[in-house]
């Protein structure tokens, strides 16, 4: 694995390093280099399995983090690629031509975070949220509690009893 | 009388004088030319009339006052008069046709032309061997000269090949003449034929005389030069070659054939057969019209050679047969060549242009049908006599080979007809000048006149028999009327015919009456939908009535010839009907081939059957002497091609499915019954007693059972509604065949019940689906769906028909099943019976499928505004449904007469009736009670549901539970495509197109063989010379060896 990481570091001028657990390595690199790296990993280093694509909203740093996770089934090694993109300009290069299923992840991320992937198939169609309007719900500036209270008729809170004491009284009234 | 010498005199005189006319006096020259040709024709005609009127005997004309051998003698007998008339008429009409060419080339061409005609005339007349040589040469020179009319490279090449070949042939002939003179001491043919010297001199001399004459007839394979001539020269030249030249040469061969003695005849016949077969084979893959016509011409010549060669066997009939073939070839080929000239394109497909010229199209089709030797044209009678005579003298192989050749010829001829009638890929127009069309019309008229003559000759005493045919012919004439009017006329005519049948057969021969009822009344019912068509609907009514008259004539036929003619007329009519469909060229073609193949086997069977019998009445079927088993089998195969039994069924689905909406019921519900009728006749002929344990009926029983299975299974997997019904027809006909093969009273009763039911429900189904197709414009079931809401009436009729088809009580289909079961168990055909039963269950698959996929399920977008099928489609359906209901509720009313009919043949084990209950020794069934019980029960239960279900809300198509989702489109929700996928997985292998592949293989390998054979025609003049020399040498060697 180390050799692979070294090769990656050489070729893509980044700092790939091993991480815990043992068989997981991390690479962080610029968004323009992502597709070449994925392609390289798939075709040359035999990381044939694309596992997932997720996003994280770092609202404090004003950027989104995209994680691409690949697996090499022969070496039992995973490699995670981290790409940071600016929040002001949420756009990423699509990689669906390497693994078709990436399109679906991108669709989901587009829906949940509003990160656009131009030219990804059906990327603008609604996926999990049929007909969502407004701020994408997984962005951190979206106040989900407020939204829920406005939308879903919150049942007014009742003055409840403390379950512990109540049940204790009810079941074992003799005890203290 | 004008002596025939004037023919030479006029021709030569005018020909020489034409040379004197300057270019300025073209008008005079051409009028003189036409005058001369007219005069020649007149002289020949005058003699012909004299002979026909009877008081004229054969005349010999001697030139220059000497008697032969010192002078040339011409003979003018009846045969010569006939042939001269033919040649001169061909000459005159050809000259009319070539009017523009004469205008262009002037006197030169006229002289050549006159010399050609004169040469041919003299070839026929002369009795002098050397004179024959001279005029043969003159004719070839003139013919080669004619090749230059179309001044193209190809034409010139063809002329050169022709010239060298004929030159070498006549050189051989000249050598023969020298030897003949040397040994026979005479050149006078009459003397030579009797000369002992020739006989003594041995085979070489007669060989050298006869062989060149055979070579003149362009025998296969030494005939490349002739073919090129047909292909490349002006069509009019081809017409002369095929019509006049062949006629003359064949006559010469006939004249001189006795020189060869018995061996000579045999050789001629065998070479003729080789020519007939080889040439037809080589023609198979031909796509150039005139070359194909050339192949056909040569094949016809081969046939004539066969006839000449079989002279010892045929005796007096030789001339009649040969004349029948020659005159048909003459009229039809000339006409076709001239048509080719009008169209002036090489590819067969370009004949589609004729669709724009109905009269020419009619003539074209008529010519081709005549050429294929189908009735009522003369060639058919020739072939009929030939085959009968061959059978009488016990030559089964000859019959087989001749019929095979005829079938191969039909293949390319009818492929061509298909293009002519249907192909739309032409992109040019043609110019029909009057002078070009008139000769064709005249030839067509001549052909029709000969049809009349032959019919009169054969059936002078039973003219009434051909009245329906005359009616069909009338429809050809009335074809310019609007379709609706013609429909009325046709129905009235059919009504009259029905009355005639009613008058003649009811009570006299109820079996025939029953079939007449199916054919004629069924015909009327299926004609009714024709009222939906507007415009003229050219060609439909003549074809339909041709078919129906053929069917009717089948009923009233009393002898084999009448029966066969009726059969073929029906076939032609139905072919013309089927080919009218949109995509039916291919299917109509395969229908025609199978029909013809079947008809030819039937013909052979008939020939064997009548052999050794005094007459050809239908009763000969019960007294077969010569190869009785084979004869019966052949006849059965003939009928089974019509009933589409397993192995011979592959034509049916396409033909029935692709036909027009109102044609499908005709061909499926009605036409197929003709085969059933034939099989019944055959079985009656074999005799009930004899046939009970006949191997034929046993085999047919198994065949019927397997047909039923495969037919129904095939139907279950169809996506095309009409194809489904067509496959179902195959299956149903399998039942019928099986039921009749049981050969017991009950078996036949079941068979007749099936027949009646199938006629009714298949007509309803095809009309119903036809109505649907009429509205939806598609055959694919998965494109339909939900039509019950738009076409409820059609749905009701189709539902009733399907219940009848499936044999579900209480409808009449069950009557057939019940009888069938009893019959099977009593006959002890358990396994076969089970297969048929299995087939019956499989019928449910397609029954459901057609109801579900077409009428139930989801209505498609584009059918949202569709209307109920036209009333004219519904009327016959409801009438037939009425019949089914009557049959269902009162089965005794119909089964009893059936029983009486059958009792004549199978008196034992009949069905007995007890107060409406049918009883056999095994079981019982009361149709009326079952019906009443079921209907009352249904009513009560309906009431129960009505009572318990309240406030029923009518909902729409997509208001279905769909796993919480909503259906997207009717197409995706209508589960119609490949409905029986699971079943296909389990049993689909049974309907893998194995039989189709076998036929395909036969078809392809025959075509490949043909293609391989024609590779000998390399196009090199020298090769052709080698062919001629080698052919001569090989034939000579073979004769020598065989002696």
């Amino acid at each position, binding site marked *: 694995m180390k050799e692979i990481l070294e090769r990656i570091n050489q070729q893509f001028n980044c700092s790939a390093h091993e991480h815990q657990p043992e068989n997981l390595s991390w690479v962080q690199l610029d968004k323009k280099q992502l597709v070449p790296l994925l392609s390289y990993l798939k075709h040359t280093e035999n990381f044939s399995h694309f596992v997932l694509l997720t996003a994280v909203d770092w609202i404090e740093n004003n950027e989104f983090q995209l994680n691409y996770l690949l697996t090499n089934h022969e070496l039992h090694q995973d490699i995670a690629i981290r790409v940071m993109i600016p929040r002001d300009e949420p756009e990423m290069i699509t990689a669906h031509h390497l693994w078709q299923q990436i399109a679906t992840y991108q669709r989901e991320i587009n829906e949940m975070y509003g990160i656009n992937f131009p030219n990804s198939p059906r990327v603008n169609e609604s996926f999990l949220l049929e007909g969502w309007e407004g701020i994408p719900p997984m962005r951190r500036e979206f106040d989900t509690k407020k939204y829920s209270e406005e939308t879903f008729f919150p049942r007014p809170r009742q003055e409840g009893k403390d379950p512990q004491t109540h049940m204790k009284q009810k079941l074992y009234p003799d005890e203290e | 009388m004008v002596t025939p010498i004037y023919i030479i005199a006029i021709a030569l005189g005018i020909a020489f004088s034409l040379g004197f006319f300057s270019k300025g006096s073209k008008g005079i020259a051409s009028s003189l030319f036409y005058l001369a040709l007219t005069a020649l024709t007149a002289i020949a005609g005058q003699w012909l009339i004299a002979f026909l009127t009877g008081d004229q005997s054969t005349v010999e004309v001697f030139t220059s006052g000497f008697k032969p051998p010192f002078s040339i003698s011409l003979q003018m007998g009846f045969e010569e008069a006939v042939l001269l008339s033919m040649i001169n008429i061909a000459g005159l009409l050809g000259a009319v046709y070539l009017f523009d060419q004469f205008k262009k080339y002037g006197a030169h061409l006229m002289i050549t032309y006159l010399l050609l005609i004169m040469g041919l005339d003299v070839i026929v007349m002369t009795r002098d061997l050397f004179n024959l040589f001279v005029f043969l040469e003159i004719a070839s020179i003139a013919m080669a000269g004619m090749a230059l009319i179309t001044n193209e490279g190809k034409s010139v090449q063809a002329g050169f090949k022709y010239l060298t070949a004929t030159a070498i042939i006549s050189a051989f002939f000249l050598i023969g003449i020298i030897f003949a003179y040397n040994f026979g001491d005479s050149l006078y043919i009459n003397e030579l034929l009797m000369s002992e010297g020739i006989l003594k001199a041995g085979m070489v001399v007669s060989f050298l005389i006869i062989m060149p004459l055979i070579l003149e007839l362009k025998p296969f394979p030494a005939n490349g030069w002739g073919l090129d001539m047909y292909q490349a020269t002006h069509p009019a030249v081809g017409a002369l070659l095929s019509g006049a030249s062949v006629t003359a040469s064949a006559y010469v061969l006939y004249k001189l054939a006795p020189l060869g003695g018995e061996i000579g005849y045999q050789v001629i016949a065998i070479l003729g057969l080789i020519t007939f077969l080889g040439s037809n084979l080589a023609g198979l893959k031909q796509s150039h019209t005139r070359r194909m016509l050339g192949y056909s011409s040569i094949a016809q010549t081969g046939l004539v050679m066969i006839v000449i060669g079989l002279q010892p066997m045929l005796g007096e009939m030789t001339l009649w047969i040969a004349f029948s073939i020659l005159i048909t070839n003459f009229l039809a080929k000339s006409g076709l060549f001239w048509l080719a000239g009008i169209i002036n394109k090489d590819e067969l497909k370009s004949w589609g242009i004729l669709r724009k010229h109905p009269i020419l199209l009619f003539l074209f089709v008529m010519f081709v049908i005549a050429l294929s030797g189908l009735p009522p044209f003369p060639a058919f009678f020739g072939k009929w006599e030939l085959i009968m005579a061959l059978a009488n003298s016990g030559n089964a192989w000859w019959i087989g080979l001749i019929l095979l050749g005829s079938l191969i010829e039909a293949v390319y001829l009818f492929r061509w007809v298909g293009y002519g009638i249907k192909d739309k890929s032409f992109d040019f127009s043609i110019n029909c000048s009057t002078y070009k069309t008139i000769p064709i019309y005249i030839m067509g008229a001549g052909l029709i006149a000969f049809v009349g003559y032959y019919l009169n000759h054969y059936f002078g005493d039973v003219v009434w028999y051909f009245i329906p045919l005359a009616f069909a012919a009338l429809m050809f004439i009335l074809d310019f009327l609007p379709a609706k009017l013609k429909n009325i006329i046709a129905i009235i005519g059919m009504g009259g015919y029905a009355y005639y049948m009613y008058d003649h057969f009811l009570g006299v021969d109820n079996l025939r009456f029953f079939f007449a009822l199916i054919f004629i009344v069924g015909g009327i019912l299926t004609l009714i939908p024709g009222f939906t068509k507007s415009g003229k609907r050219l060609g439909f009514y003549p074809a339909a009535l041709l078919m129906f008259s053929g069917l009717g004539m089948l009923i009233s036929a009393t002898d084999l010839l009448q029966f066969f003619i009726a059969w073929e007329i029906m076939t032609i009519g139905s072919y013309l009907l089927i080919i009218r469909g949109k995509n039916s060229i291919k299917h109509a073609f395969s229908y025609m081939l199978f029909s013809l193949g079947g008809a030819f086997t039937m013909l052979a069977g008939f020939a064997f059957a009548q052999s050794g019998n005094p007459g050809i009445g239908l009763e000969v079927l019960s007294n077969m002497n010569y190869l009785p088993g084979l004869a019966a089998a052949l006849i059965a195969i003939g009928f089974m091609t019509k009933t589409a039994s397993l192995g011979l069924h592959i034509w049916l689905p396409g033909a029935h499915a692709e036909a027009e909406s109102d044609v499908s019921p005709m061909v499926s519900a009605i036409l197929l019954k003709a085969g059933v009728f034939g099989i019944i006749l055959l079985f009656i002929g074999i005799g009930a007693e004899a046939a009970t344990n006949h191997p034929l009926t046993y085999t047919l029983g198994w065949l019927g059972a397997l047909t039923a299975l495969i037919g129904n299974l095939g139907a279950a997997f169809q996506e095309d509604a009409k194809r489904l019904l067509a496959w179902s027809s195959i299956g149903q006909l399998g039942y019928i065949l099986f039921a009749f093969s049981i050969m017991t009273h009950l078996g036949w009763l079941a068979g007749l019940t099936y027949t009646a039911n199938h006629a009714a429900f298949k007509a309803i189904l095809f009309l119903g689906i036809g109505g649907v197709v009429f509205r939806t414009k598609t055959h694919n079931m998965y494109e339909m769906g939900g039509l019950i809401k738009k076409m409820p009436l059609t749905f009701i009729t189709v539902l009733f028909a399907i219940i009848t088809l499936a044999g579900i009580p209480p409808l009449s289909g069950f009557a057939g099943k019940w009888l069938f079961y009893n019959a099977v168990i009593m006959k002890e055909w358990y396994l076969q019976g089970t297969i048929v039963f299995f087939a019956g269950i499989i019928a449910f698959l397609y029954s459901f499928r057609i109801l579900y996929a077409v009428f139930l399920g989801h209505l498609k977008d584009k059918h949202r505004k569709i209307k109920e099928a036209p009333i004219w489609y519904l009327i016959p359906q409801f009438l037939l449904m009425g019949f089914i209901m009557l049959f269902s509720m009162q089965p005794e009313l119909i089964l009893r007469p059936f029983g009486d009919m059958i009792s004549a043949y199978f008196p034992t084990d009949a069905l007995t009736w007890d107060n409406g209950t049918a009883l056999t020794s095994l079981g019982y069934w009361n149709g009326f009670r079952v019906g009443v019980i079921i209907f009352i029960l249904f009513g009560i239960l309906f009431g129960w549901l009505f009572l318990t279900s309240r406030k029923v809300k*009518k909902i729409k198509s997509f208001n279905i*539970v769909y796993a919480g989702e909503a259906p997207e489109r009717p197409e995706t929700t209508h589960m119609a495509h490949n409905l029986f996928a699971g079943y296909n997985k389990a049993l689909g292998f049974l309907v893998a197109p194995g039989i189709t592949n076998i036929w395909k293989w036969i078809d392809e390998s025959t075509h490949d063989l043909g293609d391989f054979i024609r590779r000998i025609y390399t196009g090199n003049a020298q090769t052709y010379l080698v062919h001629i020399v080698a052919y001569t040498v090989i034939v000579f060697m073979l004769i020598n060896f065989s002696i």
Partner: protein
Amino acid sequence: MSEETKHNNQPENTEESNKFPKEHLQKRTVYSPDGEKIEIDPLQDYYLQDRPERRDPRYRVVEKFLNWARSESLWILGFGTGCGSIELPPLTTPRFDAFRFGIAMRPTPRQSNVFIISGYMSIKTLKRAIRSYEQMPDPKYVVALGSCTINGGMYFDSYNTINRLDKYMPVDVYIAGCMPRPEALIAGFNKLKQRIKEGRAEGANEYVQRFDEYKANQKQIIKDWNMPDYNW
């Protein structure tokens, strides 16, 4: 429901439904086999647009008897919506054996009369649940399972999960818990039986009665409303 009101309702719906148009629900133009132009409005042509109708019991005595039969023959629609659907299968095991109470599972809404909302209900599922509920024949009962259906439970602040089921369809019995055990379910069913026998379980009629209110609530959160107002 008169023709007029139906038409009055219509424009709003189409407008709203066009906001998130599904291709197959858009109006389309096709040509008939004869070449005639046909306008297809799938919602109109393929779905019945009628409003539901109230179906009141006619004869008290008969209805009492029928209600008894209904209560003793509860056919559950097999529609698992949340984690609660895993609590349903044990009902058929020997330990709980709900069959003895006349409870059975049916795979199609047309044949069932009890709808168990078994847990949290996302908007997307709600759409399907409404469709299935409406497709069940009268009379029909809803049993809501778990706190998620009562007040949102642990998803109380989710952007995508409803808090109160009774705002969207009439609920007969709530069974509290997260998740309630099969015993609780059976207790709930007994409660339901009681309700039915008392003739109080008229949820279907209530739904019709307050149809507009329910619809408004449903449409408020289901943004791509791509079905007719009432799914027959």
